């Protein structure tokens, strides 16, 4: 019962961060600022969703699997953000932003 309530609260909080990240993606003025919104907000959003799901896990293996997913997405997200930022720096802004 308490576990279910915690799951619902944490996942809802996570969804708020996903929504905020998407709002930033749409509203921020340039590529770099949008990357801020995507990487940071989605990282916290996914972290909260995963924390919520951990209360539904069937055992330590499930918890470790969720943790592994979060770590991999985190590493991929921050690396991808850096690569997009670097590419934009060397090759200029995308046309659709002008």
């Amino acid at each position, binding site marked *: 019962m308490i576990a279910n309530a915690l799951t619902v609260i944490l996942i809802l909080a996570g969804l708020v961060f996903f929504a905020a990240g998407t709002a930033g993606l749409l509203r921020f003025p340039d590529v*770099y600022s949008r990357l801020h919104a995507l990487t*940071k907000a989605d990282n*916290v959003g996914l972290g909260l969703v995963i924390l919520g799901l951990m209360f539904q896990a069937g055992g330590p293996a499930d918890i*470790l699997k969720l943790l592994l997913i979060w770590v991999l997405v985190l590493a991929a997200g921050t690396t991808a953000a*850096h690569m997009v930022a*670097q590419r934009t*720096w060397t090759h200029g802004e995308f046309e659709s932003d002008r």
Partner: protein
Amino acid sequence: MARASVPSHAGRRFAGRGRSRARRALATAAAAALLWWVLAGSAALLEPLALLAIILAAVASLLLPAGRPLPLRPGALPGLLGFFLRSSFLGGLDVARRALDPRLPIQPDFLTYRTELAHGPPLTLFMAVVSLLPGTLSVRLEGRLLTLHVLDRDADTRAALIALEQRIRKAFHDPRDRRASDDGAAP
């Protein structure tokens, strides 16, 4: 690890190196088994395919040349992890607040920062974590000069970067330190 390279006797040195390779193979097998357990459950661990994969992973670590050891200080890791979790959460909170605020309170700017971290894992980790700190995004690295994008040019970004750099420096053995003191001093 350091003991394996003490040049006391040729035969013993070889045995020591063999022991450290065996230990590495064992660790690889344990990691592969853990990963299989996490991904497929405990019942799947006894299947022939799982055993084959674990054994092949161990054999591969015996056959392939050893990579450079990761100069981590395990004692400093919990502090670094706590700092990372706290500041990456604040980073998400900060950017979410800015994105949802009707006035869109951002003042984007670029900033350069000269880091003293050694190239390799410490610098990679620094650049990765910078992108998750509140308001900073690592854009480009030229030598030791890092170009960052900041969401709020009035924030005290430099102090946060210095704090992060100090924490990462504490978590790694600096190869330059080791070369200077040669041996003994490092734990």
